């Protein structure tokens, strides 16, 4: 469904993404992990058209290389951001409507916006300004707005970062529900190995922009190279 072929991104002399290729299958929950600065978020920024790059990205058999971000959103790729982004000038409901009005194929669909408010449980906050939401609320808002574009694939960038154990559980439930009930393919960048082994079917591990391995999460987590470069210390925490 989503296929990256030899993508490379240079920031000056730094290769943030280095000749990376991978493919996400339809219906999957696909994990991406790697140490800080490995280039995970940059991969998202390339897929969603925020930076130019070398190589090629295909989505649903169509070449989307070089398209501007808003066209990629309309094509059915939605994303969230590692550092939560909101529209402080807008209410929760209006923010989610933005995704529907501008990103969804048929334009504004108020019934769908209502369903999403319910789905991400932000109904009681619907008239609130988004700046007043707490961290979990902001993350749910980003997901809600992304879902309002009626995407085929949703890419989450560290959705668990900063959440407590209870909230992580709720977020995992939500992600599963998006995948199973809404039948949306999911890509997730995550540091917590437990979350990845629980949620994902395939796990891509990258370091300094290059692929270390790509396998079922249990297998990937036991890859000696992976343990050495990334999991060595994190594994103890989980």
């Amino acid at each position, binding site marked *: 469904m989503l296929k990256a072929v030899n993508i490379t991104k240079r920031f000056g002399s730094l290769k943030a993404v280095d000749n990376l290729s991978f493919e996400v299958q339809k219906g999957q929950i696909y994990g991406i992990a790697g140490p800080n600065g490995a280039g995970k978020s940059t991969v998202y920024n390339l897929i*969603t058209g*925020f930076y130019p790059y070398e190589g090629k990205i295909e989505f649903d058999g169509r070449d989307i290389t070089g398209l*501007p*971000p*808003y066209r990629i*959103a*309309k094509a059915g790729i*939605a*994303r969230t*951001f590692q550092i939560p*982004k*909101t*529209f*402080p*000038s*807008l209410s929760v409901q*209006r*923010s989610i*409507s*933005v*995704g529907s*009005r*501008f*990103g*969804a194929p048929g334009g*504004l669909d108020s019934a769908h916006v209502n369903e999403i408010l319910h789905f991400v449980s932000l109904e*009681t*906050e619907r*008239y*609130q*300004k988004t700046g*007043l939401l*707490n961290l*979990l609320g902001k993350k749910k808002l*980003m997901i809600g*707005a*992304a879902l*309002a*574009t009626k995407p085929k694939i949703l890419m989450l960038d560290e959705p668990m970062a900063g959440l*407590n154990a*209870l*909230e992580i559980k709720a977020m995992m439930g939500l992600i599963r529900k998006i995948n199973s009930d809404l039948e949306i393919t999911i890509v997730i960048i995550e540091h917590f190995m437990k979350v990845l082994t629980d949620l994902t079917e395939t796990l891509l591990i990258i370091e300094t922009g290059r692929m270390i391995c790509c396998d079922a999460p249990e297998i990937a987590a036991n890859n000696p190279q992976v343990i050495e470069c990334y999991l060595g210390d994190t594994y103890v925490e989980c």
Partner: protein
Amino acid sequence: MNLKSMVTFLAVTYGLIGIMPLFVGDSVIIMRILTMILIWSIVASCWDVIMGFAGIFSFGQVAFFVIGAYSSAILSVSLNVPPVVAMLMAGMITAMVGVLVGLPCIKLAGPYIALVTFAFHMALKPFFSGPLGKAIGSGGSRGILSVPPIKIFGMAFSSAELVPFFYLALFLTLICSGVIVAILKSYWGTAFLALKDSEDFAVSLGISAFKYKLMVFGITSFITGLFGALYVHYVGILSIRVLSGQVFTTLMIMIVVGGIGQYPGVVLGAVFTVTAEQLLRPLGIYRFVIMGGLVVAVVLLLPDGITGLIRKLFPGRQEKESRSIETHKSSLEGVG
């Protein structure tokens, strides 16, 4: 501000201004003040739309006003175009120039947009006073001295007949205010706000930054150019003095006093600033010292201008809203 309070605010403010001539129609000076309030309120409103709502730090507002004025003056003087047609064409010319100035601004960050647009403003003076301007009929540094009045069905509108001109200006002001409200409250306005708040988030949801930023340049410069044209047919003369710092500063005072991004507060800003400038006129150049001090005071004490002050004095619904949010927040924390 929601749609209902926005419309009420505008209806009351322009309504009160609109009935003034019934009482003071004989006073030349007051009629002049009222007419200038109408013209500047729209020019300042457009600045608030592009700067306050779209978050684009365009300093080209006076430049667009002047381009509209010169376009209509040149068209009607040199080419004998009927003023009503010339005014519409002036609006369209200004919109095109606005879009051209907007193009390089799309990828730039705030302060650089201010630099680019102000550089454009600065370039207009030598352009209109130099040989290039003369060639297109700007009259060089002497300017254009006999801009014809607006003629509609045989009736002439200019500063010779203050009351009729006032009502023509009011008519255009109401139409343009309606357009501004419609834009701000539609999804176009939402797109402007979303792009201002977080461009990354906005484009990831399908908003084209390119399209909506150029649109805001196009629409605001059209209306600004139209009012520049209205102004020039009103005063009948035009020179590069309109490009002076005074006009620019006065306009800036209006939106700071009204509250940036607090439309329609800027309309009160225009009422206040035009009146104050007129009352302080006996002080000569020193009135700008007072006005300048005022701006500093407003910025420090009332970050949201008069609008913020009104909100503080009459809390009303807004206050209730934020209170219920706070209670809600604490109940959430209780659960979490």
